[in-house]
C-alpha cells in the first residue's frame, strides 16, 4: 500500500507547491487524482517517484510510505526498483531509439528477467507495437507513443504504476482503448494504478476512489461514483453547468470572485 501523509513540497527551497497532501493507494486499486492545471498533481506523482530531485524540488515535511517503509528522500532509481514506476506526462519516448530498444530499457531494472516473455506480454497488450518494433519511436503517432511509454513501464513489472495525463491530446477512441488496457493490466497483473487526469470523466469512470486537488492541497476525496455527482466536480472538471450541457468558452464569465469550496 502506498500512503502519503501530509506531504509538503518546496521547489528551490522556497516555493511551496504541495501543502499537506495525504492520500492512499491500496494494493490492486485504481485511484484518480484530479484537478486543474497547476494544482500540484504532477508534483505529487514526482514526489512519490522521487523524480522531484531532478527539478530542485524536495519533500520538506510529511512522509511517503510504501509497504510500511518510507520512500521519500530516496533516489528515483531506488524507488523504481521497489516497483513504483512513473509514466510521465507528454509521452516521453526515447525518440531516436526504436520501439524495441525503448521497451528493453524499460525492463533494464528487472534482474534475471525473461526479456522475450516480457516483450511478448507488452505486445499482447499493445499488438500494434509489435508491428512497429523496429520503427524509430520519435516518428510514431501520439497514441502509439502513449502505448509505448505504458508498455515500457509494464516491462518493469511495476507494483504501482503512476500514470500522468495519459489522455492528453489523444482522440477519444484511443483514450477509451488506453483506459481499457489500464483496467485490464490492473486486473491481470495486480498492479495498482494512480492516475492523474484532467479528463475527469474518463478517470472517474475507471477508478474506484478519487482525490481532487487545488492549490497544492487535496480539497475533496471520495468514491469516484459519488464524486461524479458532486456539483463542483461537474462544474469545473466535467464542464457541465446545471442543465447538464457543456460549457463553451464564450460562456466563461469574467467574474472577479473565485469559486469556493465548502
Amino acid at each position: 500500500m502506498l500512503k502519503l501523509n501530509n506531504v509538503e513540497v518546496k521547489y528551490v527551497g522556497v516555493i511551496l507547491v504541495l501543502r499537506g497532501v495525504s492520500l492512499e493507494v491500496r494494493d490492486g486499486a485504481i485511484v484518480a487524482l484530479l484537478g486543474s492545471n497547476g494544482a500540484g498533481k504532477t508534483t505529487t506523482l514526482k514526489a512519490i517517484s522521487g523524480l522531484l530531485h531532478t527539478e530542485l524540488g524536495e519533500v520538506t515535511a510529511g512522509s511517503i510510505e510504501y509497504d510500511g517503509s518510507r520512500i521519500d528522500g530516496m533516489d528515483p532509481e531506488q524507488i523504481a526498483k521497489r516497483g513504483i514506476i512513473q509514466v510521465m506526462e507528454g509521452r516521453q519516448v526515447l525518440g531516436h531509439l526504436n520501439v524495441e530498444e525503448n521497451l528493453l530499457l524499460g525492463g533494464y531494472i528487472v534482474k534475471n528477467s525473461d526479456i522475450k516473455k516480457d516483450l511478448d506480454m507488452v505486445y499482447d497488450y499493445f499488438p500494434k507495437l509489435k508491428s512497429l518494433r523496429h520503427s524509430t519511436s520519435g516518428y510514431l503517432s501520439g497514441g502509439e507513443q502513449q502505448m509505448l511509454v505504458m508498455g515500457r513501464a509494464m516491462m518493469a513489472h511495476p507494483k504501482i504504476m503512476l500514470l500522468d495525463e495519459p489522455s492528453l491530446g489523444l482522440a477519444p477512441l484511443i483514450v477509451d482503448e488506453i483506459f481499457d488496457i489500464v483496467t485490464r493490466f490492473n486486473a491481470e497483473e495486480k498492479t495498482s494504478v494512480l492516475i492523474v487526469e484532467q479528463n475527469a470523466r474518463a478517470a472517474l469512470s475507471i477508478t474506484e476512489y478519487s482525490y481532487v486537488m487545488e492549490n497544492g492541497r487535496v480539497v475533496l476525496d471520495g468514491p469516484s461514483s459519488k464524486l461524479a455527482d458532486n456539483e463542483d466536480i461537474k462544474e469545473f472538471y466535467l464542464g457541465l453547468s446545471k442543465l447538464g450541457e457543456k460549457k463553451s468558452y464564450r460562456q466563461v464569465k469574467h467574474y472577479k470572485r473565485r469559486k469556493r469550496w465548502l
Partner: protein
Amino acid sequence: MEFFGKIVAAGLMNGAVYGLVAIGFVLIYKSSSVLNFSQGYMLLLGGYIFWSFRGGLRLDLFLSLLLTLPCAFLMGILIERITLRPLIGQPLLSMITVTIFLSLVLEGVASLFWGTYPLEQITIFPKGALKLGKTVLTTESLFAFGLAIVVMMVLIFFFRYTRLGLSMRGVAEGHEIMQSMGISVKRILTICWGIAGVAATLGGILLGGTLGFQLGLSHIGLLAIPAAFIGGLESPEGAVLGGLLIGLIESIVSGYVGKAAGVPASYIVLIVVMLFRPYGFFGLERIERV
C-alpha cells in the same frame, strides 16, 4: 605527389587520434548536451600521467599503459563527480562554463606538477618504416593508427549492442525518462566521463609519442572539437570520420600553407560546416535553427 601522399598518410594517422578523442567529446555531449571544452586538457593531463609512469618511473610500456588507463578513467570520474555532478539541475550554460574553467585547472595542474617546459621525448612503439609505393610510413604512426581504429571499433560496438551502451544512448534522449525507469543517470554520466577520460588519454599517449609531451598538446586536443562537430555531435561513427577529415585538412594545410595554419584551418572548416550543415554529416537532426 610524393609529398601529397605523405601528407595524406600523416593526416590519416593523426586524424585517427583526433577521432578517438572526439568520441570522448561526443559521448559527453550525447549524454548530457555539454560541450566539453576541457577535452584537450584531459588529453594533456592523461598524456602527462602516462609520461610519469613510462618516462619518469621508467616502467615497462604495458605496465605503464595498464596503470595509466585506470588513472585516466578515474580522472574522468573525478572530474564528473567534483564539477559536473553538483551542477545537475543548473542551466546548461553553467555546465559548459564549468568545462571551460576546468581547462584552466587541468592546465594548471599540468604545469604545477610537470612544469611548463616540454618533457623528455619517449617513444612508445618500435621504430621502423614501411614503404608503400613511394610513401614511407613510420611503424610508429601505423601502430597509432591501428590502435586508434581498434579502440574506436570497440567503443562503437559497445554503444550498439550492450545494455550499458543502450542506456547511454537512452540517457542522451532524456534524463528524467531514464530515471523514471529506474536507471541511474548519474552512474551512466560518470561512466561516460570515465570513458571520455580514457579516450582522451589514449589520444594524449599517441600524440605525445609523435609530437612530444608538452603543454601545446592541449591545443592539438582542441582539434577533437571540430572533428566531433563535423562528424555530427551525436554520432561516434561521425566522430571517427570527422577526425580523419580534420586530420587530413590539418595535414594538408600545414604542408602547403604553413605549420601553424593547421588548427585555424580546422576551425574555419568547422564554421563553414556550421553554416551549411549544422548537424554535421552524421548527426541527428536535432540542432535547430532559430
